[in-house]
């Protein structure tokens, strides 16, 4: 996990964390333990919608290990090399809302169609909590 552990001393490295609920956090990883509990400093939550993304500054995060999906280093040089376009927070939140809405509607239609055929598929998010 942090074999480049020395870098925590020399150059602080930005890390990207993907959480189980789908959030993406980017920050300086300050501490980690064997359960992958993380302490992130100067964290920014990055929301991606389509080709746009927006950063919401969040400060210090302490993440419980079980919610971490993956954690990776960010190559600071390549960080700006992205085809994605950064937009303001308001805009990205709006985009996200729109996207969510569209998804929900299509989901509703699907469920309706299945219901008409006598089938029912449990929703994925409820499945996660086994």
């Amino acid at each position, binding site marked *: 996990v942090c074999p480049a552990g020395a870098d925590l001393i020399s150059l602080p490295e930005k890390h990207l964390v993907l959480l189980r609920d789908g959030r993406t956090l980017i920050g300086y990883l300050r*501490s980690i333990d064997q359960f992958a509990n993380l302490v992130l400093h100067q964290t920014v939550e990055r929301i991606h919608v389509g080709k746009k993304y927006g950063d919401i500054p969040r400060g210090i995060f302490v993440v419980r290990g079980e919610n971490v999906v993956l954690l990776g280093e960010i190559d600071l040089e390549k960080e700006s090399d992205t085809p994605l376009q950064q937009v303001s927070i308001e805009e990205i939140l709006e985009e996200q809302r729109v996207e969510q809405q569209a998804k929900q509607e299509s989901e509703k239609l699907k469920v309706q169609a299945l219901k008409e055929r006598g089938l029912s598929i449990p929703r994925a998010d409820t499945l996660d909590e086994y």
Partner: protein
Amino acid sequence: MAESSEPPILEDYLLAEDAPLLEEMAEEDEEIDLYNEMTFGLDRDSVDEEVAKALAPPDKGPELSPVGKNEVAAVEEEKEKEEDKATEQQGQEAEEEQPVVEEMEEAGEDGKAGPGAEHDDYADMEEDVGTEEEEDEEEEEEEEEEEEEEEEVVEEEEEEEEEEEELHDEDSEEQNDLGDPAVMRAVHSKPPLESLDSAVLDSRLGSTWGEFEGDDVMAADSGAWPPSPSSILSHRMLERGYLGSPGLKRPDFRMMSPKSFPQRFMRQQSPMMPCSMGPPRPFTPPGRAPPLFTPKQSPGYVSPTPFRPMSRNISTPTQPLAMRFGPTSPSLEPSLFFSPSASCPLKFSVPSHMTQLHPQHQRILTQQQQRGQAQSVSPKKPWSPKADPYAGLMTCKEKDWVIKVQMMQLQSENPHLDDYYYQAFYHKLERKQAEEELLGGRNKQEPPKLVTPYIQKMEIYDSVVRIAGSLGQVAVSTCYSPRRAIDAVHHALQEEAAGNQRLRALHRIEKMFLQLLEVEETQRKMSLLPEEQHPRFRDKKSHEVGRIYQALKIRACDSEEEAEDEFLQILCVRKGKKLTARLLPHLTREQAEEILVTITHHLPFLMRKDTLDESLPVLYGPLSEMVGRMTFSKLIEVLQELTRPLAGSTDLPLTMTFKNQFGISLLYALLSHGERLLSSDAPLEPHSGDFEKWTDTVFLVAKELSQVPKTALVEPLVLPSNLLSLFCRYLDKQTIHRLEAKMECCPLPSEAAMPC
């Protein structure tokens, strides 16, 4: 009895609202350092400083039970001794006072004879500082021993006073470590159930009672705490904690009754208590018998909680083995836990656990390291390396430790299975580099062949424990491995006779698949081992493959009822096709050809059954490879299958293949191979009549192709390039043009070159 009074729930301690905060803060540091010590190993230069910190009194809450209080006081007093000799005697008194206090409590209910005697002794040993106060308090306690609350108050006062003396010492040390976010509170808890309840098995406390008499840990001097991590481990590493504090002195034991021993034991443990970093379990009060061994996945470090026994990894050769459940031999040395990379310099000296990575992986990491250091500070970074105050929050040791813990979790006997993706990735990388080197002539030496990145043999954790003479399984083991206890192995016999055919086919497929997986595993292992051992594996493999082939029950091609043919039933299932496809490369040529003949013979049937699934193409790959190796005669034989009219009709299987992607691809593959054979100079050794059959076939194919409307023709998976040349041999230009258009082949280079 004071001890038997229902102790307050642990949560109450945490809810203590007005616990003297100063004391707590001061005590925190000691706990942190203690915790760090024990987890990561000694890394400070001044052990004394550590010792001093560690000896500060632990947390106290106003709602502590009297028992807890006693323990607290005792611990603190024991630690005091270590600080300096000036207070040693005082501490000693205090310690002796404690048992006295305890005994007074006990005696309180009984009578006052005991305390009186003790009191006299105590008076003899009086010293200056604070003694008189203590004495007074003692007297008070004597009077009020019936009333618990007042006792508490008194004890609290007493402790407070002692603390005040030390407080100024601790203040200076406070500032250093307050910022450490890894602080955990020392919380008291009750003595473990085992010590109180004689019915509980293996209360190691009692068994090790005798050890203490000769315990050289007790004789440790102030500068040698802890003597060394490994010696602590090897010494009295009881399953439930350890004597971190060398404050135990012989006189105490003499004075103390065995009954109070557990409480004393608890005192030592109390500062260690928060260091529970075992698998996150709630801190439940010991109203239950704690397990006597930790589950498999507890990391290998000293876990000093009183309720959770030590990790099995710790070797304690000197321990009396009262009863050991679970595995007995450790898989790790104690020294592993404390791997002091004393300095974690910027140059990344590869610690031991890193050597278990794939060499390529290691190389990449060290490259990154070097690159990271050589690089100048990127302008985008908000921090300058010197000014980043948070950079060192995790020390090198801690990082190494976390890495080590995680590497331990990666240990496996069969890394190729358990860690398939990692291994496959680096193998691919290796191969790519090898290719590059061949082509580009790179100077870099190739990484050495990866043999065993991980520990070869893992401790087999026998979770089902059987005690001789017992009835059934022990509850302890089942609590940790309930699945094992349930033992969900399906013993029911498969009902081959009853049940429908499809189920039977599926069942057979599953069985054969398992065999096939074993074969592939053998193959993989073989490829990794040196040449000498190959024959052995090869034999084993061919034996297994033969068995699977037998199980396939391929019958001679006859026009028997196709629905009955077991092999065909397997082929009707998608998984069966996959099984055959995966098996084909391992089969001998005769066997493979047998399969091909069968498939082509029954091709219409298979194609019909496959309309929904469309999974026949999985067979194309292995079959085409096989086709490429066939002899001419065999090819002809196979083609005959396609050109023989179906029973009961004039339809040719050939025509049907045009509509099926797999069929047409197979046909093209066969034709292409024939053409290749003919145009090559290799001797064909045809049987009589082979060439005629060949030409007949070609003509037939051409005819059918030209007749079939283009729309009905399905695009094949692979369109061989030599088909047109094949047709050229035998057909006229016009036809060829038509065929060309139909098949959408790339046109031949020049028409003049065509032989026809």
